[in-house]
């Protein structure tokens, strides 16, 4: 497999350390000059080696949420050509800006992943990431444009249309979520369609999956599977490159990684609009510096579980607090509720008063419908409401 930017991806360790030190020092100067909050925190702080990084203040997701929307921007808004939102702590909104250079660089970083996956200018790429992933979608489009591959600029929601596109447009590369890939495998199976009749050569998954799931998807789609790992607030995709050996190589010319108490902490070295200093990602991680047969010299990330209450529902990051906030907007506000989250839906066991429980079926259906439609419109996820008699649910908590 080829390497898109060998200058950076295979840079000798000493040269990379020099580049990172230079970029870190310049970043601190820019943060002190351009971002008031960092100026107050950093004062006269200087770094003379990468080891000094641990002396610098951390940026927590809560800090970003507190300075929403533009408090951490390092450039005037008129220089920002794109704004992407991300889900912050407890569902609070975060916004990340990109300048022209940030966008161009993003394209190059995603191109590194695509090239590592074997994508070339001759490929046709279908991207099915579903709702709530517009940021990632545009990242993949930028990467594909950078290597001049063809992109099908449609992301139909219904799996039937996705399959129709795979059959009609004959894409050779599919970028999708593990959930969607599994749904495609099931659909192919149900319709007795041989995956080899499609023209797929490579499938790039939006997040890492366990080996067993990976093998199942790989055989179900009859294509090589590569994964992606990103942090939405930092960059996703384009954060790291999964090499043919299956290792996640961090783009170290752009990001400086540390692990503090088991948590991945990232400093953006070259981002212009929204630089981040020691951002606590809330993701468990191990860093490995080892020689990789793929030729890349950059540090390898082994991402683990999230360390906060964020879960994925239909690939959308959701916090418990968001669910309770939506419930509070409905007639169910104040009723005891038990929340169960699966990968595909939120199951709400709502304990209603005996009076309501004994009420007309129509009232109950109306309540169910109201809650389900609030979840669909506010969070874009499916909620299943079960009405529980107070006598049958002694564990219910107050929502």
């Amino acid at each position, binding site marked *: 497999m080829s390497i898109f930017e060998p200058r950076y991806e295979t840079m000798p360790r000493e*040269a990379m350390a*020099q*580049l990172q*030190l*230079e*970029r870190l*020092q*310049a970043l601190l*100067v*820019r943060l002190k*000059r351009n971002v*008031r909050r960092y100026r107050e925190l950093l004062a006269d702080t*200087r770094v*003379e080696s990468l080891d000094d990084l641990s002396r610098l203040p951390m940026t927590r997701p809560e800090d970003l949420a507190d300075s929403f929307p*533009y408090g951490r*921007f390092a*450039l*005037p*808004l*008129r*220089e920002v050509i794109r704004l992407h939102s991300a889900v912050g702590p407890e569902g609070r909104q975060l916004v990340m800006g990109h*300048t*022209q*250079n940030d966008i*161009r*660089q993003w394209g190059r970083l995603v191109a590194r992943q695509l090239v590592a996956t074997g994508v070339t200018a001759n490929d046709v790429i279908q991207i099915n990431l579903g709702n709530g992933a517009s940021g990632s979608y545009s990242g993949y489009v930028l990467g594909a444009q950078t290597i001049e591959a063809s992109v099908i600029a449609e992301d139909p929601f219904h799996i039937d249309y996705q399959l129709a596109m795979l059959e009609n447009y004959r894409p050779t590369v599919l970028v999708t979520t593990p959930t969607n890939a599994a749904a495609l495998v099931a659909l192919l199976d149900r319709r007795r369609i041989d995956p080899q009749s499609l023209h797929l050569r490579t499938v790039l998954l939006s997040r890492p999956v366990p080996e067993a799931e990976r093998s199942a998807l790989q055989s179900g789609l009859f294509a090589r599977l590569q994964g992606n790992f990103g942090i939405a607030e930092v960059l996703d995709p384009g954060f790291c490159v999964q090499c043919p050996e299956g290792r996640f190589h961090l783009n170290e010319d752009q990001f400086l990684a540390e692990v503090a108490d088991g948590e991945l902490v990232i400093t953006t070295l*070259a981002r*212009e609009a929204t630089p981040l200093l020691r951002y606590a990602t809330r993701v468990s991680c191990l860093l490995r510096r080892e020689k990789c047969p793929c030729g890349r010299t950059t540090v390898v990330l082994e991402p683990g579980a999230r360390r906060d209450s964020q879960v994925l529902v239909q690939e959308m990051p959701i916090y418990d607090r968001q669910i309770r906030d939506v419930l509070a907007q409905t007639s169910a506000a104040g009723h005891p509720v038990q929340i169960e989250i699966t990968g595909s839906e939120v199951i709400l066991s709502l304990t209603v008063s005996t009076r309501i429980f004994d009420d007309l079926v129509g009232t109950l259906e109306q309540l169910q419908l109201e809650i389900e439609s609030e979840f669909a419109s506010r969070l874009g996820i499916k909620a299943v409401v079960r009405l529980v008699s107070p006598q049958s649910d002694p564990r219910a908590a107050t929502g």
Partner: protein
Amino acid sequence: MWLQIKNLRCGYGSLEVVKGVSLHVDAGEIVTLIGANGAGKSSLLRSVAGLLAPWRGEIRVNGHDMVSQPPWRNVSNAMVLVPEGRQLFTDLTVWENLLLGGYHNPDRRMVIAEVLEKFPRLRERARQVAGTLSGGEQQMLALGRALVARPRFILLDEPSMGLAPLMVQEVFEVIRRLKEEGVTVFLVEQNATAALGVADRAYVMETGEIILEGETADLRRNPEVRRAYLGKGYKEVWE
């Protein structure tokens, strides 16, 4: 890596001019350091050349530690400085200036012939006193004098200073040709447009610190560079 600087601090008396700068120049690159007057660019270059003792930090040229080395040691490491304001021997002829540039080089007469091939105008004026040349010709002579030492790494301090735009183009064309011949160039310039046009990578220096680093194509699009150095103004609309 031809030049590697880490945390360089230097200045004059108690005045710190360069405040902890790190940068590097890889073999075969043209790297430029741009910044306004008084940013500390020339002081940094003087430290690299051994003319200004660093207070702290590391300077390595082609892997050799240059801190506390005399300036002439640089020449034997195949590094030559073309100083700001040319610093020619104005009472000597063009030929004599070139001869002095090859002081360390036993093959200097042969090299001078090669240099004169590159700069036909100098050949025409070989017997002319350097002080009587035009600004552009003097800059060519300063460059030619440096090349007689057969450098593999050349430091250029403000080569466009005081030159007419056409002459600037000509000087930068010579710099571009140097790269083609395999010479590594570290160019310190105030003329950001010209410098970013010729270099592969650039550093932007303000009040003794590097504020930006990157490939020149990226820096030309950077809002801060455009505003401060490329004359593209805007009203501040933030905070």
